[in-house]
């Protein structure tokens, strides 16, 4: 039986969907970033700072952070559910992953906020 991760209804389908959509979004963003690096072989602080000062890039980056949060959660959930059979250990690991991901998310948000 498929267990629910992110929602009570629709069980595993939501996780599957979120994992795929976030994957596509992050892949597109990565290609954009790669293009930026290729176009700026001698990257300066000003180029880099201006990139993240742009509102569109900021919004895109926040969307990527949310995608990463969910993608990593579904991925780590799958790995721990597959390999960690002890309920208490698995529950603890899941909790640590959620807390860590939330901390990463807010840390990155604060970084972007300060620009």
């Amino acid at each position, binding site marked *: 039986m498929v267990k629910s991760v992110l929602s009570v209804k629709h069980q595993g389908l939501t996780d599957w969907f979120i994992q795929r959509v976030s*994957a*596509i979004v992050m*892949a597109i963003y990565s290609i954009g970033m790669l293009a930026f690096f290729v176009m700026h072989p001698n990257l300066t*602080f000003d180029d880099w700072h201006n990139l993240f000062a742009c509102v569109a890039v900021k919004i895109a980056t926040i969307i990527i952070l949310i995608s990463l949060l969910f993608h990593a959660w579904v*991925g780590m959930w799958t*790995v721990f559910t597959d390999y960690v059979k002890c309920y208490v250990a698995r529950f603890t690991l899941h909790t640590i992953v959620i807390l860590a991901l939330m901390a*990463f998310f807010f840390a990155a948000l604060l*970084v972007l906020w300060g620009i």
Partner: protein
Amino acid sequence: MGFFSSKVVVLYKQKRGNDTTVTNRDQRPKNLNLFTIRMPIPAIVSILHRLSGILLFLLIPIAIWGLNLSLKSAQDFDNVHQFLTTPMMKFAIWFCLAGFLYHLVAGIRHLLMDINIGIELKTGRLSAILTLIIAASLIILTGIWLW
């Protein structure tokens, strides 16, 4: 299946009349030693996707730390730049990028399988080999780009 096979064993036992030569389904030897199991290429591609995923998860805080410093000030940007261009760190970055590129390519393979491309044994094996080749080429290209 279990019911069926146990019934077969019973019939087999009756026929042979010798319990010691009969092996039940549950008593068959199991081999879960990963060092002696020969994994097919799609299995290797799949487990590497998982391993690279775990690596990327662990790298998130380091990436955020680098992003923070690189955006703080021109001085910090130069510090990060200098730190990352030491040969040792360059190699570490290459390794991390390799994990990312592999995860990306193998992930695209999974997405293609979601839309029913490469789900047969033959095509699945082919796409697994292609994943390894494409990822390896991208990783080598990245290495050339970094140095």
